[in-house]
């Protein structure tokens, strides 16, 4: 009898612990990823250098990772890898006509020009210069860049441009950080580089006109982007780079919620779903700005994403 009671008690305790762990996981994971630049810090900036870095030499692709094999151990993992690999190979091959059409397109120049234009009106970003150069996405490379900048802060814009897995949109994503030259990291943490004064992921997606979900194939979408020496793709990229720079200027000046709490929609705000950063999945947030058929959406975790047709 006692054995039964002990077993029931242990089971109940286990279930309660599991529920608590689950609750902690769900609430513990939800926190803002955006670090807002506060006003006192902003006023202390005497000089800045903006560095825009493009991760890929050409338009990239993205794939939906296969997960069907999950739960089947090593064999399942191998099957998933093979399926994902096959999708990626297909996407790379089908993207070739778009890349050929864009072979003379200078995404760096488009980005650099847009940043110069949009950051110039920010009076607090004093003596700012903008240059485009490749910066490896490693802590060491970023720390070295900041060390050699000779300015109070470096505004680092690490940009990626790629097609969604269905080729129905081109997504430009930027990880934007404002890094101080003076080290602010905790003692004993020198290897991790300077802690950012501002950090956010900002993305913009332009959808392909004429794309019909579940009907337009990858090959057809590729042709639509590539036609006329990549006319549509060039428009998406030019418009996307301009919008991205405008979003960065907007977001640098925006305050954040107190502490690390989530961003809450104002009572009258419209909810909208956007394509996720780096073309992965979708996310929902509230609209902060809307014009010309495009909406800027703030996600609960702070990221800013834009969605709509081609930028006019």
């Amino acid at each position, binding site marked *: 009898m006692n054995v039964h009671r002990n077993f029931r008690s242990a089971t109940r305790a286990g279930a309660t612990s599991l529920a608590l762990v689950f609750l902690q996981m769900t609430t513990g994971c939800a926190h803002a990823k955006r670090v807002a630049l506060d006003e006192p810090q902003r006023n202390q900036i005497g000089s800045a250098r903006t560095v825009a870095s493009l991760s*890929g030499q050409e338009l990239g692709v993205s*794939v939906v990772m296969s997960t069907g094999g999950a739960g089947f151990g090593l064999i399942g993992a191998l099957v998933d890898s093979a399926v994902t690999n096959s999708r990626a190979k297909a996407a790379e091959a089908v993207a070739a006509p778009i890349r050929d059409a864009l*072979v003379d397109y200078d995404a760096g120049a488009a980005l650099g020009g847009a940043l110069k234009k949009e950051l110039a009106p920010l009076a607090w970003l004093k003596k700012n210069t903008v240059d485009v150069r490749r910066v490896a996405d490693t802590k060491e490379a970023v720390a070295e860049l900041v060390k050699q900048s000779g300015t109070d802060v470096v505004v680092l814009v690490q940009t990626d441009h790629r097609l969604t897995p269905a080729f129905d949109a081109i997504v430009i994503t930027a990880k934007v950080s404002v890094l101080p030259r003076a080290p602010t990291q905790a003692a004993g943490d020198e290897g991790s580089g300077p802690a950012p004064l501002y950090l956010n992921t900002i993305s913009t997606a332009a959808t392909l006109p004429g794309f019909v979900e579940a009907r337009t194939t990858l090959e057809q979408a590729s042709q639509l982007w590539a036609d006329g020496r990549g006319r549509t793709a060039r428009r998406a990229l030019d418009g996307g780079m301009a919008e991205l720079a405008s979003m960065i200027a907007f977001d640098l000046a925006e305050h954040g919620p107190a502490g690390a709490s989530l961003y809450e929609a104002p009572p009258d705000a419209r909810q909208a779903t956007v394509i996720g950063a780096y073309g992965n999945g979708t996310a929902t947030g509230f609209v902060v700005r809307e014009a010309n058929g495009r909406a800027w959406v703030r996600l609960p975790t702070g990221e800013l994403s834009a969605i709509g047709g081609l930028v006019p």
Partner: protein
Amino acid sequence: MSARRRVLSAALCAAALVACRTPVEVVASSLAAPPAASDDGAEPAPPAPRKPAPGAQPVWLESVEDRRTDPSLGDVHGRPFSSTQVSQWLERELESLVSPTIYVMKATGPGAGGKLWLRARILKAYVSGVGVTKTATVVLEIDFVAPDGSATSRVFRGQHASMNWWNTEGEVIGALREAGSNCLEQIRLAIEARLRTPDLRG
């Protein structure tokens, strides 16, 4: 597992992870096609001098220009690759293009004669990773110059995508080599097709 073994395993894992992200400077010799290994384990013999087939036509390579703005070759899953020797590698590969009907020679100066001259420009050379796949790309623009000096340009894209098993230097360099071969094969076919046109034949 003893504490000593645990520490050793952790150190080995950490070393492997660091190695997987260490920047790699790629040299031309590592990009060149590897010589075939001999069966008895002896040092591989140097490549035999190229012998054009009887009746094969010479094609002159005038120049190879690297139009890339920086030496970066991109990165695969966080591991950056770069090279300042891409033009050396591709020049050597172009010079070794040979088939039963053509062979490419480096032009040493004006007056070499011949029916077709090539001017090559390297537009792209990079590696990238998406999901579990690594992709290498080489894009060359070739000017085909006829004896009357008229030139036509064409862009050739070589690509190789395959599973990224270990993210090793050898794997990624191998993918670049394959992309280069894919690009050169297209160029060889284009040269042969051009030499078959009525104004260059005969």
